[in-house]
């Protein structure tokens, strides 16, 4: 294999890794904080991409890419915030909250997906990327925009980590995640904090959705694939630390792009699931962590 091909595959793997990291972190943050698995995460990715696409259309004013990103992220944050009160809050006192949340979030995913289908139709759309030029990277010709995506994804994750560690608000979020009862006795408004967490998760999903939508085409059901990949990433990496799913995301991204080249596109999901099963058998707490979940 030529070096430039290798670099090309590696770079596309790293780019995928960055996108998966963004999506999986959103999922992991909800899992560690709310203690439920959000199956509507893929639908958030879809809806985020569609909102951004709509904003760039002449009908809606034909705004630029940046405005579209900001609008979409804001809208999805608000939606996530509201959806907590609709999907998870009503069931939180039931002992089967985890199961009920699976059903309610799956229902929400289905509703959002079909809502998108009704509103925007089944045809593929693409968000026009703001940068079209290609650059030569160690012999491989790579989209300049890919580097922007990677940088923005990592920056967003870094900003989120800083928010959680350094600001009082972020610290109260972590407190509510680690010990709900103690947080309530401290007078923290736990449902509101949980809603903010779901909002942040939806906002990162939207960002990822926009990036995917400007690399490939979007259609009403394209969120299913990101959801599945984030699930694999979260299981592979574990949630012991904020960074665990991020490392796992790059492992998955690179493994996927190499397997797509060597084994063919149809085999890469099989390989990823095989990796997931192997990890579940050998180190069920995830590759990057111990038996705990934290934020």
């Amino acid at each position: 294999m030529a070096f430039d091909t290798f670099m090309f595959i590696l770079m596309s793997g790293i780019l995928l890794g960055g996108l998966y990291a963004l999506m999986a972190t959103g999922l992991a943050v909800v899992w560690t904080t709310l203690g439920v698995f959000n199956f509507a995460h893929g639908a958030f990715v879809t809806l985020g991409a569609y909102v951004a696409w709509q904003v760039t259309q002449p009908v809606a004013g034909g705004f630029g890419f940046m405005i579209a990103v900001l609008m979409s992220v804001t809208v999805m944050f608000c939606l996530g915030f509201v959806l907590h009160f609709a999907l998870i809050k009503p069931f939180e006192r039931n002992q089967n909250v985890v199961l009920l949340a699976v059903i309610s979030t799956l229902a929400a995913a289905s509703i959002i997906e079909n809502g998108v289908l009704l509103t925007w139709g089944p045809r593929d759309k693409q968000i026009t990327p703001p940068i079209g030029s290609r650059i030569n990277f160690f012999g491989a010709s790579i989209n300049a925009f890919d580097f922007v995506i990677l940088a923005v994804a990592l920056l967003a994750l870094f900003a989120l980590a800083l928010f959680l560690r350094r600001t009082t608000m972020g610290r109260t979020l972590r407190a509510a995640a680690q010990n709900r009862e103690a947080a309530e006795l401290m007078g923290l408004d736990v449902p509101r904090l949980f809603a903010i967490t779901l909002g942040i998760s939806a906002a990162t999903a939207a960002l990822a959705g926009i990036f995917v939508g400007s690399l490939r085409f979007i259609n009403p059901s394209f969120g299913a694939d990101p959801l599945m990949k984030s699930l694999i990433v979260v299981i592979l990496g574990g949630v012991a630390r904020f960074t665990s799913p991020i490392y796992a995301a790059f492992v998955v991204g690179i493994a996927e792009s190499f397997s797509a080249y060597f084994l063919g596109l149809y085999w890469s999901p099989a390989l990823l699931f095989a990796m997931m099963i192997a990890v579940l058998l050998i180190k069920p707490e995830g590759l990057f962590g111990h038996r705990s979940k934290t934020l």
Partner: protein
Amino acid sequence: MTAALLELRGLTGGYPPVSVFRDVNLTIKPGEHVGFFGPNGHGKTTLLKTIAGVLDPWDGGIYFEGNRLNAEGAMQARVSHNLNYDLFRKRRIKARDVVDAGLIYVMQGNLLFPEMTVEEVLDIAPRAARGRPGVGQMRRQIHDLFPRLRERWQSKVRYLSGGERQMVSIAVGLLAMPRLLMLDEPTLGLSPKLRIELSQAVQNIRETGVPLIIVDQNVEFLTSLVDRLILFDHGTVTREIPAENMPDHAQLMEMMFGGAH
């Protein structure tokens, strides 16, 4: 009516369907330090958790500075076995309202937030103060009260010893600028040396004028700190002992169990 700080009227509660304490009547006056003593499993912690709003009271009233904290009337018994029954049932007391009123509960053997550093925990604690003044001064006081914490400032709570964790819990309670502070078994699992250290700290807190309710199994610790001792047995208050005739360990055992222990 004299202005009571905390008043319980016929308070009944527990973990449905098991009733743990019944018909508890109690008045705590401003500036008073009260100790609770009783055997394990007789409802002291459950009572405090109910007052703090963690558990729903079944019946009776909790009044703090004249304001009722829980909903009026008795709790309805569970009328359906539907799994979703609980979803439609309203909470009868909210922990946030209790904290807002300034009634702060320091949990027993509190794990707090295992992955946060002492600094981070004490940074968010004043949120509970709801703008009651004096947080800045209290921050400085915390350093004097618990000099040990300064050495562990950047350690995660997970890595603290039981005593240090207890100190963080109490510091968190103090930073909420409590109008009444409830300490639940602060000496649980502490070595005698640490117990003396903690006793000194609680003594200092006492001198700052914060009214206290202390639940503890250690008679010497308790009697040295409180003005009034309340014996709690079989889920209700059985006896109140004023400061003048504070018993020692042997006398207390005699009173409660009627024999030498």
